[in-house]
């Protein structure tokens, strides 16, 4: 299964991602999930970035929170727009989940 998961919170209260074993995993950081891509707590990147996955972050939600500078973004994460999400859902992944 090719799965793309939307992460919309900064502090996750579920371990669903640990339980999923898709052949291909994409993680799209939206809403407050964008802090995973930008914020280092005590100098450490978010543990959410430790999965073997393709990471994306929504540009509009970065900018809304004042996080538009490329220097604040983890190098694993690709910045995308709403239109790119549609392309990913239709072309790259079979299923989507919202965490």
């Amino acid at each position, binding site marked *: 299964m090719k799965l793309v998961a939307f992460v919309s*919170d900064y*502090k996750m209260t579920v371990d669903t991602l640990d339980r999923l074993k898709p052949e291909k995993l994409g993680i799209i950081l939206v*809403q*407050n999930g964008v802090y995973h891509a930008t914020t280092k707590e005590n100098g450490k990147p978010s543990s959410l970035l430790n999965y073997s996955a393709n990471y994306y972050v929504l540009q509009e939600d970065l*900018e809304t*929170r004042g*996080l538009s500078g490329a220097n604040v973004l983890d190098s694993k994460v690709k910045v995308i727009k709403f239109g790119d999400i549609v392309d990913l859902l239709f072309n790259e992944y079979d299923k989507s989940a919202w965490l």
Partner: protein
Amino acid sequence: MATTKLGFVVQRPGYKSENPKLALTHAIASQSVEIYLQDGDLVTADIAFIGDGVLNCIKGQKAVENYDLNSTESHIKMALLLDLNVLVCKEDLDRYGLSESDIVIDAPEFGADMEVKVVPYSEITQMMEEMNHLLFF
């Protein structure tokens, strides 16, 4: 004559929920109750950002451009315009690698004289002890 002191403590990041912005709108609205007060009575409001709440203070928020929403940043600036005491926890800023240059500090374009104060958590604790009512968001 009496002064009622309100303390608003914001401990969550913004936008996904209205919660942090509500703290600011409530604090701002508290300054419009004069008509219900006796002469000489006052209501003051202090706002403190702690924990993940300090992420609300990052400057350069483009909420209007992207979602047609007033930004939390502009609400903080409105609070400064009304001379509200806005405190940001230094330890929590440090935890996220943020400094004063990353956050909203003043609002000269709004004509505000007040500035955001970055203070150690001990000062925020002191502020909370001085309040008559504390509201957590």
